[in-house]
């Protein structure tokens, strides 16, 4: 199977960046949740460095996902031609909700992910080691991370359903 340029962009947007986001999210959540000041200074410094890398990877991958999704993959999707995925979905009664519900939710809610992840990145970088002592800020950071994940997962799952119905190859 040979992919077109649009297909490659869709693969990058949904699969590559989505995978990077998922891996970084899991690592960041683990590091954030296990940040304890009982550790020895070298261990603590190592975990902190990993945490910062993972959190910023979450933020950068989330930005790249929404930018490639909105400005590259979305353009052929919503083209007015009858062959565009949007036209195909709207032409079939049973599939119309994949645009009117799935795509319309996905294209908006996904933008919350990079905004929240960037705020999280700032908090982790600015407070750094203090996060181990400040339970309120650490918990707030975890909530931001999870909400960013939820927004991305909504986009990812709905995107997968749309892609399954009208593949971009």
């Amino acid at each position, binding site marked *: 199977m040979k992919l077109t340029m649009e297909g490659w962009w869709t693969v990058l947007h949904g699969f590559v960046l989505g995978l990077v986001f998922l891996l970084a999210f899991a690592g960041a959540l683990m590091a954030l949740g296990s940040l304890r000041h009982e550790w020895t200074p070298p261990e603590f410094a190592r975990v902190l460095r990993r945490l910062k890398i993972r959190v910023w990877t979450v933020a950068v991958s989330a930005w790249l996902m929404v930018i490639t999704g*909105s400005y590259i993959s979305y353009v052929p999707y919503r083209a007015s031609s009858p062959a565009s995925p949007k036209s195909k979905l709207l032409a079939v009664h049973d599939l119309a909700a994949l645009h009117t519900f799935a795509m319309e939710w996905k294209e908006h809610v996904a933008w919350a992910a990079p*905004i929240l992840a960037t705020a999280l990145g700032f908090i982790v970088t600015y407070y750094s080691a203090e996060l181990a002592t400040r339970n309120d800020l650490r918990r707030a950071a975890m909530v931001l991370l999870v909400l960013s994940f939820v927004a991305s997962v909504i986009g990812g799952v709905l995107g997968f359903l749309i892609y399954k119905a009208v593949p971009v190859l």
Partner: protein
Amino acid sequence: MTTVPIEKPNGPALAAIVAASFGVFVLGLCTFLAELSAGILNALNWWPPVGPLVGKTSIAVIAWLVAWAALHPAWGRRELSFRVWWRVALGLLLIGFLLTFPPIFQIPRGKLSYRQGDPSCAYVSCSFSRKLTGPTPPRTSSSSPLSTAAPALT
């Protein structure tokens, strides 16, 4: 054991959190307002290939950055009530997320369809808003602008 003294106030963290929540809220608000009138929808259409999504998301990002740029210096050296501002942030996030949920932000679209007798109420939003507005009246012979724009899916 690593000793970490608390030296920095919580103001910068709350500025980042509240600003991000405000950005999400503005995203939801723009999404909802775009459904209220064709004028707003057209005003948000900054780049036709992508449509109004560009305007909505760009305004949200600008609002987030401006709010952050304003709050960070204002709260940078202050210790604020975490509980109060965290709740404000969660409230903004909740409203923002709800307003990006199609059955909610498409309510104006459903009402408009209802008023104009649009038959395309096979859409999820229309079936949802139909519960609020009542059954769709029978179609008239004159076709509305919406019925030509949206495919008849009944």
